[in-house]
């Protein structure tokens, strides 16, 4: 691991792919209506997924974060799986029964305190022997804030500036203990050498930190940073701060384009062209044959979006009850009641111009001859993120991504819990290994080792961050 070389300006494909698994917990993509659908909250489900993923040499096990229960027309949303554990608590438990897989916690910068969150991430990193990662997300709405001490306090426009100051403070906290701060023997003067610790002072617009950090660096120095924002601002933030982008660009041509965009931004930020890894969100529907996979896909889609979900999906944007409409008929001919879709929360759609959207969708559905259910199914299934086919067909497709470096891997959302990784690990992984594009063993013991990321050098100066 070289820490001092000049950043590379040319991207070099690794020729390899990594896999991660995203146990979503809240979404319409997880099938709960099948006989095989297991618990979304029992520890056994998490154990099963994590241990299967580790058997398949997955780089990462990924959890989302809940800040407020999704609502629909002013009440909790009833139709999708919901209810999930605190990410870091669950990952700390999984750290005890796994040994190589990375443990990624989604945590927002708005409703956490930097000192507290950095400390908890340090803990997870040490408890897992250097396998922790933080997926940095931002939140700004007052609706979410209703569960927290400060309420909604952050303007949408400020969210990345705030997040970046927060991340910078966290990195300073992780760097604050020099090597050798902890006593090597019982005869040392003190257990922790205060002179080897740098207190953190940050006096910013949104938060103040005056803190003496309490933990040394982990074997990988800092938790790996994931980031998912796709706006230009989000991409620049990732280019400056992140190690891995959990991207929304799985389709091959789009992935290539996204890669070159990120390489350009990363180099412009003074980092190496290979320093930021890209792992798009994806779904895999596999079978022994192409036909079997296609049949399975039709079945999965019918379970993901039933008639009630199709209507409810439109209600989110129409802001009114549409239960009188036939899910197998055309889109509603009435207009949404709200200009901004303020009635529906927690699904990430608020702020869209509802009326304009409704008319676009109506003509799109009419043009393609789609019913409400077909239209919603096509929209929500993220068809571009789905790899459907026989094991060998999909392995062939993925090989191309590896060779050109379109992506560094895929973050898979299983549509079935807890057995949704079984066919991937049993069949797709060996097919990828045969093609020489997938690891045959873990590279090392830390997540940085396994993702091919260098341990970060200590920040040269501990300058106060600028927000």
């Amino acid at each position, binding site marked *: 691991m070289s820490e001092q070389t000049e950043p590379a300006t040319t991207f070099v494909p690794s020729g390899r792919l990594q896999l991660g698994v995203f146990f979503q917990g809240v979404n319409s993509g997880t099938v*709960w*209506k099948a006989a095989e*659908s297991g618990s979304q*909250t*029992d*520890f056994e489900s998490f154990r099963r997924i994590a241990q299967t993923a580790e058997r398949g040499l997955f780089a990462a096990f990924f959890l989302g974060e*809940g*800040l*407020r*229960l999704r609502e629909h027309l002013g*009440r*909790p*949303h*009833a*139709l999708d799986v*919901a*209810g*999930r*554990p*605190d990410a*870091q*608590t*669950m990952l*700390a*438990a*999984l*750290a*005890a*029964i796994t040994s190589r897989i990375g443990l990624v916690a989604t945590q927002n910068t708005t*409703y956490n*305190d930097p*000192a*507290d969150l950095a*400390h*908890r991430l340090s*803990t*997870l990193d*040490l*408890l897992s022997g250097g396998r922790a990662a933080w997926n940095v997300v931002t939140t700004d709405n007052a609706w979410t804030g*209703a*569960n*927290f*001490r400060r309420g909604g306090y952050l303007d949408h426009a400020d969210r990345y500036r705030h997040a970046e100051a927060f991340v910078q403070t966290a990195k300073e906290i992780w760097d604050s203990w020099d090597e050798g701060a*902890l*006593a*090597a023997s*019982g005869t*040392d003067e003190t*257990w*922790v050498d205060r002179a080897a610790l740098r207190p953190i002072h940050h006096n910013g617009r949104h938060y*103040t*930190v*005056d*803190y*003496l950090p*309490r*933990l*040394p660096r982990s074997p990988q120095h800092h938790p790996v940073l994931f980031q998912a924002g796709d706006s230009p601002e989000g991409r620049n933030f990732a280019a400056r701060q992140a190690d891995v982008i959990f991207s929304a660009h799985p389709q091959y041509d789009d992935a290539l384009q996204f890669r070159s965009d990120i390489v350009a931004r990363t180099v412009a930020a003074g980092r190496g062209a290979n320093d930021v890894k890209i792992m798009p969100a994806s779904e895999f529907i596999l079978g022994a044959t192409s036909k079997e996979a296609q049949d399975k896909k039709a079945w999965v889609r019918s379970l993901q979006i039933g008639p*009630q*979900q199709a209507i409810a999906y439109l209600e989110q944007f129409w802001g009114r009850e549409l239960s009188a409409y036939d899910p197998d008929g055309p889109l509603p001919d009435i207009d949404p009641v709200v200009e901004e879709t303020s009635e529906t929360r927690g699904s990430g759609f608020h702020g869209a111009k509802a009326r304009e959207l409704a008319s676009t969708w109506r003509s799109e559905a009419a043009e393609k001859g789609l019913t409400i259910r077909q239209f919603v199914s096509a929209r929500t299934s993220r068809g571009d993120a789905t790899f459907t086919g026989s094991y060998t067909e999909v392995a062939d497709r993925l090989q191309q991504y590896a060779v050109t470096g379109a992506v560094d891997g895929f973050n898979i959302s299983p549509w079935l819990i807890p057995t949704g990784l079984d066919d991937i690990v049993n069949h797709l992984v060996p097919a990828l290994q045969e093609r020489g594009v997938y690891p045959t063993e873990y590279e090392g013991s830390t997540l940085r080792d396994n993702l091919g990321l260098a341990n970060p050098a200590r920040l040269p100066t501990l300058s106060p961050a600028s927000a």
Partner: protein
Amino acid sequence: MTDTQTPFPPERGGLLLLDLDGSGAHPAAWRLDPAGPARSLLPQRLRETVLAAESAGFHAATFSDGPTPRNPSAAAHLDALQRAAFAAPVTRSLALIPEVDTVYTEPFHVGTQLASLDYVSLGRAGWLVAASADAAAAAAVGREHVAAPALADEAADAIEVSRRLWDSWEDDAVIRDVPSGRYLDVDKLHYADFAGRNYSVKGPAIIPRPPQGQLPVLAPAGLLAPEQVAAGAVDGLLLSAPAPGLLAAEVTAARAQNQPRVAGGPALIVELDIVLDARGQSASDRLAALDAYTPWQETRARFTGTAAELADLLAELLLVTDGVRLHPAVLDVELEELARLVLPALRLRGLLAPIHPDATFREQLGLSRPPSRYADAVTRATTAVPSTRGANA
């Protein structure tokens, strides 16, 4: 509280809790830690320690925390809740009780984290409530320093938030009803609608009701106001006295002050520091050696002596209390003696509650699983979830 309580004295015996903090409770413990000073931060060490505590026959382990620990032997500190979570899948019967602050933390996160600990431990989680009085803890998160008596209110509010969140999903809220397409029965979800002195929390929780329904909540005696304790805020109180001989009187006084357990009063658990004869050295010599480095200034009662003497003291205490929490001077050294000599002697005398693998912490405390406070709330399918403000335990 509507629980069925076990009459006191409990026929099933008392509980022994062990605090697992750093290398031990003595500030110089790290110097004489047989495992070496840096090992207390390693996951292997935590795994070995909780397994040793479980196989010794302890009922529960507590995990201390705080942003600025008093104990220099624990100046580097892993988050207590995560240590407890890590311990969960490697143990079967040990209740896992992290100390979690209520003043400088987010009550919504704390409630979620503790509920999650209950899931990963299959119902063995508890909560040792703390209210940091430390100005450094305030500075770490950029908040105004909160001093007593406001600390009691902060603690009481945070407990109430967690308790409401834990009840905010009724037990049967996840229905998986395929014909109607509903995963959840929305009538079984409730807003917490907590409006406290300094903040409010809307709810519902983001996680279904924890396996125990309500996690047992323990607090140091004196943290909460007597009326908060009387209202059922906590399930257990930790009692301290300056010397071992004064502990029984402390328990008697607390029993007079609080409702009896049969009427929902808290379990009473006494705190005891211990130094034992071990590895060919007398307890007093060991203590002197430790104190020569850093004097052990602690307000808890301290026992110094042989394993047999400790067993006698604990036998006396277990006749009057519901449990004893031990703070070992040097964790590995004391634990060895406890496992080898002290716990077997107490078990032989029938003074310890039997250990059942997979028993919940509530079951250990003799508490039944309470229904959600919202379970009887009138719910109407056509309107928003009714406000439950004012609903209480």
